[in-house]
């Protein structure tokens, strides 16, 4: 879908407007740093360009961060078997890993350390696990220190003025349907609002209406033009077909996102995709 590219472009666009931005690579694959063309980043945010800070999520580090921030026992996480036990709990106990990751980013929002926090989200199938984690840990782990922190997380997540989910789709059947399912799941869960949908890699929007009419007229004639002319008209007809299909799927995604807005982002040349998209998204701002 180009989720990572869109996340990076958003972050770059915001930073170029003099906002302090934190961009987080949630799955730790390093794809976010790659999209920005910078070297690997770690858990501690690295300033990539003026105002743009990039980090890679690491739940073990987030746990230690959490213990430092919220408990009087800064040393707790440093006791080795304890760290291992808590790592295991993080892996085994549903929602703990997600709460730690989400908590780190929401904390950055809460403390106004950044003007904008962009989370390059998990794969579609895992989004709900994240959005449901504060509630689920808050319920299952009531009485623990962690659950004590989930209240403000849930509130912040649900605050439409500060947080929202941005769904990314392509103007094709399978990605558009997947995006609509995600939007439906997010709204059914209700823990966070949808702030919009981005439809990525929208074809150029050719041909013109007059060309379409001529193409149809030729197709209706059922005559084949000589080789080279035929081949050229075929190329234009293919562009028309993908444009038609794209429009159809844009309508579908826009309909699913409503009343939240949607943005179409055109196909851009491969060189420096992020910078070009940042311009496009910046102009929409």
């Amino acid at each position, binding site marked *: *879908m180009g989720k990572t590219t869109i996340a990076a472009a958003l972050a770059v666009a915001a930073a170029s407007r003099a906002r302090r931005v934190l961009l987080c690579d949630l799955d730790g*694959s390093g*794809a976010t740093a*790659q999209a920005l063309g910078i070297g690997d980043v770690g858990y501690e945010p690295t300033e990539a360009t003026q105002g743009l800070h990039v980090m890679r999520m690491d739940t073990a580090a987030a746990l230690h961060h959490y213990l430092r921030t919220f408990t009087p026992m800064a040393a*707790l996480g440093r006791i080795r*078997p*304890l760290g291992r*036990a*808590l790592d*295991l*709990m993080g*892996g*085994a*106990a*549903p*929602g*703990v890993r997600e709460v730690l990751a989400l908590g780190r980013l929401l904390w950055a929002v809460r403390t106004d350390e950044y003007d904008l926090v962009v989370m390059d989200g998990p*794969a*579609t*199938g*895992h989004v*709900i696990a994240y959005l*449901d*984690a504060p509630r689920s840990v808050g319920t*299952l*782990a*009531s*009485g*623990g220190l*962690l*659950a004590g922190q989930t209240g403000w997380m849930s509130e912040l997540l649900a605050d439409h003025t500060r947080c929202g989910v941005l769904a990314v789709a*392509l103007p094709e*059947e*399978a990605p558009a349907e997947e995006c609509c399912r995600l939007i439906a799941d997010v709204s059914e869960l209700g823990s966070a609002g949808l702030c919009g949908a981005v439809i990525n890699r929208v074809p150029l929007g*050719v*041909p*013109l209406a*007059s*060309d379409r*009419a*001529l193409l149809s*007229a*030729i197709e209706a004639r059922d*005559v084949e*033009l*000589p080789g*080279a*002319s035929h*081949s*050229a*008209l075929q*190329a*234009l007809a*293919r*562009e028309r*077909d*993908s444009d*038609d*299909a794209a429009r159809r799927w844009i309508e579908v995604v826009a309909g699913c996102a409503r009343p939240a807005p949607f943005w179409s982002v055109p196909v851009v040349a*491969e060189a420096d995709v992020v910078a070009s998209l940042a311009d496009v998204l910046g102009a929409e701002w």
Partner: protein
Amino acid sequence: MSPVADLLDQRRVVLVLGAGGVGKTTVAASLALAAGRAGGRIAILTVDPSRSLASALGLGADQNHATIDVGEGSLDVTVLDPASAWDQLVTRELGSATSLIDNAMYRAVTRNFVHAHDFIAIETLHQLIAAGHDLVIVDTPPSKRAIEFLMAPERLASFFENRALGWFTGTAANPVISVGTRPLVAAANLVLGRGFVTSLAEFFGSVRPLADPIVARAKSVDLLFREGDAAAVVVTSTEPAAIEQCMSLGDELATRGVAWEATIVNRVRQQPPGDPPKQTAIERDLTAVLAGDEGHGPAAFEGLARRATEAWQRSAVAAQYDERAIAPLRDGPPLVIVGDRGPGDLHRAHLASIGDEIVA
């Protein structure tokens, strides 16, 4: 014969791996239909097919299983539904009287725990193999790292064999907590709450009886992955990010001892046929065909001819771009190129034509 045709003919499991958005599910479905046409009992395990893809595989709305006749053979279609697959597994293993299904911790783990989906996919794959299919095509669950699925058996085993887990479950079964475990449990209680640790411990206590059979089956699947009966096919698009992921996936497959037998490059844009068109020639041809039609003036012909020429050039540039993008893959396992078909519904004929191109 295409390298993929050989795999469909000779292997028992073909794993279809790849980054998100490359058309992995479509390719897997096309392979399954192609294998079915050649004969035999074929199964496909798939995840989240789009509506038209599901109907091309014979599935009605909200249906997760179907068997269809394809050519000489039959195709068993299973869509993985992790929540209900877990519930079925638990009832089968523990009896229908089990209260585990209503346990809040169980529900949270099986519905939301990321790896739980991979675990149940492995379990379902085992069932399909055990059911005696000649070939099982696996459309691996989507995850940022496609290799996650192959790590599931090992992860499952090490999860249940973890000593720390034993400490926690031990605390539920045995009220007399050993001195060594006490600070661990105290810390976990502090962070997660006493209730959470207790119910987590209870939960693991009650799934313990499941662990041995599940782990044993997962290990047998893992062995199958590593021995000659299984093959991995990686699907990619010509996007730089997808190709990069494809190559790193190849490295990971090698370290895990899974045979990467072929790469399928999907939706490769082809060089438009013929020599570069000349605008004036197109104009002339258009005039010959359409002159006399109402409403089409020479200006319209000129405009269309220019834009068609440009479209041809864009199309040629795209084809060259794709050709270059694929180049690094040529050093790897055999490449199979699937041409871009443009937009179109994924009905069965469409899948069949993709399948034909792959096995040709």
